[in-house]
């Protein structure tokens, strides 16, 4: 019944507050999105640089192709199943294999020539510096 006396904008404000509180309490856990396909990726941003990390266990670094076109990063490659001689009996097989390809939109245009990638412990890390032309420019106002 109180609702009638509150202005709609105030209600929206309260809803927003509640949402923020939920996020605060839930921590990162509530913000983790289900990956669309392999591999799972995280996106980080810093000063004029973005970093993408991806979980790609069992794929060696030279088997991952990284390409950047405009604002899109594409990771592709193949996770090859182990080569085994005959006479092997599987009890359990859960580790997937095959080709993968995934694209992700970056927060800004990047300088493709300066993209760097490192691979360690099954995690790929791609560092993407923002393109010079894309950086916000400060415009000084001159006194007439």
């Amino acid at each position, binding site marked *: 019944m109180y609702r009638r006396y509150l202005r709609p904008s105030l209600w929206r404000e309260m809803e927003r507050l509640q949402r923020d509180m939920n996020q605060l309490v839930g921590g990162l856990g509530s913000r983790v999105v*289900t990956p669309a396909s392999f591999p799972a990726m995280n996106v980080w941003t810093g000063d004029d640089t973005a970093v993408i990390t991806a979980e790609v266990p069992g794929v060696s670094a030279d088997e991952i192709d990284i390409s950047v076109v405009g604002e899109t990063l594409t990771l592709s490659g193949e996770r090859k199943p182990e080569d085994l001689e005959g006479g092997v009996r599987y009890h359990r097989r859960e580790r997937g294999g095959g080709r993968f390809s995934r694209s992700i939109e970056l927060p800004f245009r990047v300088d493709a020539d300066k993209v760097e990638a490192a691979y360690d412990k099954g995690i790929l890390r791609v560092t993407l510096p923002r393109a010079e032309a894309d950086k916000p420019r400060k415009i000084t106002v001159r006194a007439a």
Partner: protein
Amino acid sequence: MVNEVPTLEAQKEEAPIVEGTERTRERRAYIPRSDIYETDDTIVVLADMPGVDEESIEITLEKNVLTITAYAESSDLDGYELVYAEYESGDYTRRFTLSDQIDQTKIEASLRDGVLKLMLPKAEPAKARTIKVKAG
């Protein structure tokens, strides 16, 4: 068919919390996806554990229960803010019951590209001994 390669999965499966217990660390724990196969003389376990390094893996074999636990360091990047997340780094834990006797002294473990490989050599079957009864 157990011999078919499953399709690639991106999401880690969370480990259930055992009733009546609590985790000592405020982090998520995952069940590493694993393959287990057997050759004539060895049982091989492969487990996907991205982010883990050698020192943090603990493997125990008690009776015939194999327990693997590992801790992945937090993946925070200094000077960067996480703006979109599809995975979290956490712990890994898994237990297997082995049907064969294992030669505990010859177990080998290696870690490569975030995949743990465990080689568990089967113990040689106890040789049947014939005991001769000497005539008195």
